[in-house]
């Protein structure tokens, strides 16, 4: 058993689809909060298995997509500094900033490297003592513990040439802000499996309690996604709202205690800027002052203060991220904005709503 193929079993998928259709659900709009769900839904053609009155819309859970232009411009400005190595996950490399991208900077001679984990960035700092290595800390709770551990590792090693440009964002807090603002016109939420492995399924209990919306925590295989959709539709039919966990093989109700401890040791909650959603208090983190030597926003404060405000762009990714604009309804979609020439992050990221629709329809 590898816990992937079994959950792609054609017969089980068909049986779940049959059961969902047999429920004859009322019209419902279900938001898949996480970009990995967006990709799974598109890749496996799951929308075609659902009754036409059940809509799946993409949410704000693609870390690349929600990165604010201004935050990216700041990181790009560091790449202009002599002796700096920028280190990033691969999916950030083509995201356009206001004036350039990491890919364009690298083509122009900047030292930009892609890693699989923040620990690789720490290793590069060890090997390049004459350079300043700046890791782009991006992602939700799934990646935050890894960044925190990299900072602790660098601190223990006494590295003075490693820092993190921290634009991590936190998921439950952002959902609360979005729901409070009445931005999301949805009937239920498919909650992200991997974030939930860190924060625990109980972290979302406020959603049914405060907003009376059915939720399901689920994984990323077709059977998982359909089980999640079924759990939400069932709650809707019964007038219930709770957090169903259909991904119990990987997610428990409580948070992972080690992850909580490590994140609390390194980060403090902070206001974060989300593309298309604006500033949300408490939806991001800053690096604690005791690790200021490893905080790129402190180490390069002067450079960052000189970065001009991001100019307005015609990109409407913000509306896509709120689920109020379908990708094909964006006038840029597929015309001037394509995966090979993306104007906005939803088209860049393989987990972006626009890239998924462009590739899989």
């Amino acid at each position, binding site marked *: *058993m*590898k*816990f992937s193929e*079994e*959950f792609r*079993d054609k*017969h*089980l998928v068909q*049986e*779940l689809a*049959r*059961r969902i259709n047999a429920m004859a659900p009322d019209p419902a709009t279900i938001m898949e909060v996480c970009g990995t769900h967006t990709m799974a839904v598109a890749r496996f053609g799951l929308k075609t298995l659902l009754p036409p009155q059940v809509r799946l819309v993409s949410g704000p859970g693609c870390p690349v997509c929600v990165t604010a232009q201004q935050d990216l411009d700041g990181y790009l400005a560091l790449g202009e500094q002599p002796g700096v190595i920028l280190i990033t*996950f691969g999916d950030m490399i083509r995201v356009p900033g206001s004036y350039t991208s990491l890919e364009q900077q690298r083509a122009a001679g900047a030292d930009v490297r892609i890693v*699989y*984990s*923040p*620990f*690789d960035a720490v290793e590069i700092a060890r090997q390049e003592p004459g350079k300043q290595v700046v890791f782009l800390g991006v*992602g939700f709770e*799934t*990646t935050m*513990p*890894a960044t925190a*551990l990299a900072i602790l590792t660098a601190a223990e090693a006494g590295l003075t040439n490693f820092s993190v440009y921290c634009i991590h964002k936190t998921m439950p807090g952002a959902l609360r802000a979005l729901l409070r603002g009445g931005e999301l016109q949805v009937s239920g939420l498919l909650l992200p499996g*991997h974030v939930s*492995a*860190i924060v625990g399924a109980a972290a979302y209990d406020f959603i049914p309690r405060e907003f009376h919306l059915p939720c399901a925590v689920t994984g990323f295989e077709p*059977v998982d996604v359909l*089980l999640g959709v079924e759990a939400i539709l069932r709650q809707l039919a019964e007038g219930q709202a709770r957090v169903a966990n*259909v991904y*119990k*093989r*990987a*997610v428990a109700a409580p948070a*992972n205690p*080690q*992850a909580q401890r*490590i994140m609390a040791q390194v980060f403090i909650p902070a206001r974060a800027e989300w593309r298309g959603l604006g500033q949300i208090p408490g939806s991001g983190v800053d690096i604690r002052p005791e690790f200021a030597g490893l905080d790129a926003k402190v180490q390069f404060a002067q450079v960052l203060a000189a970065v001009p405000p991001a100019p307005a762009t015609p990109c409407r990714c913000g509306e896509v991220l709120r689920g109020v604009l379908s990708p094909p309804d964006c006038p840029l979609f597929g015309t001037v904005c394509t995966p090979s020439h993306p104007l906005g992050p939803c088209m860049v990221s393989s987990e972006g709503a626009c890239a998924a629709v462009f590739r899989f329809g």
Partner: protein
Amino acid sequence: MRIIEINGTVATTEVDGVTRQARLDLLPEAELGDFVLVHAGLAISRVDPEDAAETLALLRKLADEIQ
């Protein structure tokens, strides 16, 4: 991915012949042979084989009852 070696807090994990290093800081109880979700070089969760088997068995039973 399955843990095939543990060296202190670092595990070697394997799936389909591909191996990857993963830190085990979040899963101090992890053991050789465990299946774990690995994200950005960090094992973030143990996959519970019993729960997975239970879910699949239930679904298969329901599917069989229909036919």
